[in-house]
């Protein structure tokens, strides 16, 4: 893990932000590099823990998934669904042109 966070150079910060679809101003990169590096460095204490033979735990929930009737339970909510859309045209969300 230690080599991983050491690799958190400015290019890595930009790559992560790109994956997360968050635009970074140039002046934010250095500060994020140091903040994220500090957090990742602190997290590395987990290297001390012996996890051999331990299965990963994704959730502590004890609910069991149940079957239900395969029927429509909701619908005809176009207006409610679009009520919060920043822009729409008829029953469609609109976005900037993606296909030339």
């Amino acid at each position, binding site marked *: 893990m230690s080599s*991983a966070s050491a690799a958190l150079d400015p290019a890595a910060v930009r790559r992560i932000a790109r994956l997360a679809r*968050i*635009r970074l101003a140039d002046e934010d990169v250095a500060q994020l590099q140091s903040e994220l590096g500090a957090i990742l460095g602190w997290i590395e204490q987990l290297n001390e823990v012996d996890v051999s033979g331990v299965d990963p735990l994704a959730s*502590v929930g004890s*609910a069991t998934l149940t079957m239900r009737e395969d029927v429509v339970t909701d619908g005809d909510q176009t207006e409610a669904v679009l009520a919060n859309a*920043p822009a729409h045209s008829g029953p469609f969300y609109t976005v900037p042109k993606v296909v030339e």
Partner: protein
Amino acid sequence: MTLEFTLATARDALRARRISARELTEAHLAAIDALEPELHAFITVTPEQALAQADAADAALGRGEGGPLTGLPVAIKDLFCTKGVRTTAASRILEPFVPPYESTVTANMLRDGAVFLGKTNLDEFAMGSSTTTSAFGATINPWQRRGANTQLVPGGSSGGSAAAVAAGMALASTGTDTGGSIRQPASFCGIVGMKPTYGRCSRFGVVAFASSLDQPGPFARTVEDTAILLGSMAGHDPKDSTSVNRPVPDYAAACRRGVRGLRIGIPREYHSDGMPAEIEALWTQGIAWLREAGAEIVDVSLPHTKYGLATYYIVAPAEASSNLARYDGVRFGLRVPANDLTDLYEETRAAGFGAEVRRRILIGTYVLSAGYYDAYYLKAQKVRALILRDFTDAFERVDALLTPTAPSAAFALGEKNDDPVQMYLNDVFTVPASIAGVPGISVPAGVDGDGLPLGLQVIGRHFDEETVFAVGSVLEQAAEFSAKPAIRMEAGR
């Protein structure tokens, strides 16, 4: 008059018609008017809705009808979707969002007759321990250090909900707890806050932060009041596949059980080097109170306690980065116009998310990214399994655990802001129970040398909220906590 009532005594006064729901609601709205400029506990106040609900409650009570919460004015954390009432998660990106549906928890409370005063402030997307990361400004703690007027934080993320109840702006409120966001602000504000077992309350309609950890729960000024409110909030919901289909017990009755014959574990790893002597002393006092009330005290070990926070700060950001991917400027919320779809996503998310949310999305994206997933995320999930095993082992020997809630009393606004890791350390005692999904309560048990409240935490087995309430009630009775915050609603104010 608002601080003279508890949820239970107000309910009795309403049923006996000694007071009307309208009078009670007007008194709380007046308290909000008077205190809001100083405390900023709310993002949105809904007086017309509250008075209409109060009048409906009076009509129902007049007919001899009414549910467990009829006519009782409460506040809702602005993370619960409320139909027709703006729900922001304290984020710019949801600033214009008006939900077309009601969260299950708030729907359950409305079913039981509650009056909603408004939506309370929080750390943006519930990410924080101070309610200072809100896009709508910080909430101020109603408590002040003796002889000083330094503004203190109410804790977080549910700081607005905690401050409102502490100051007498609401009888009770809802919060959500992902790593301590109910228990730590309850401790900082001198009130009771309860995080139920994961799965006890539906998460449907609660803006998601970390879905395997998030759990709604109640705040109030007494343990019994939190038990009453949880009784309404809890229950199975087909719309949340993680909500559990099992009966909701009579939590208020459980408050009267006592602790005679119970085995209470004291986890030795919670003694940390840097813990203030006053908190260590309060913990020792709490142990004595429970022993005097007939409990057997047992030394236990939760060996992976020290790795709880690091585990949390992998798991929670990973889930957050995935959950918050939905804020894309297309379907709801903020949009920053752009000529290209990728620019639209990136500019919208840059403008819409604050610094702490951005940090956590980036950490989460990193630990889930190709090449790092096993080293960080998978490793954290394995340590999570060990932390759960610690609790499972301990609960074979004891019925509940007693610990401090937080490693300090409320700190000043602006303190701990420079270093994210320092802020994260606030949750050192609350995060392990979140990771294990077990229930926990914070009960105000004493004050520090500055006169600030300190809480003790009781942790119980999965779905054994009843024992948690029983132990919490005994601590409450023994502590006789009667200190009052500096900024509060009193007759004559």
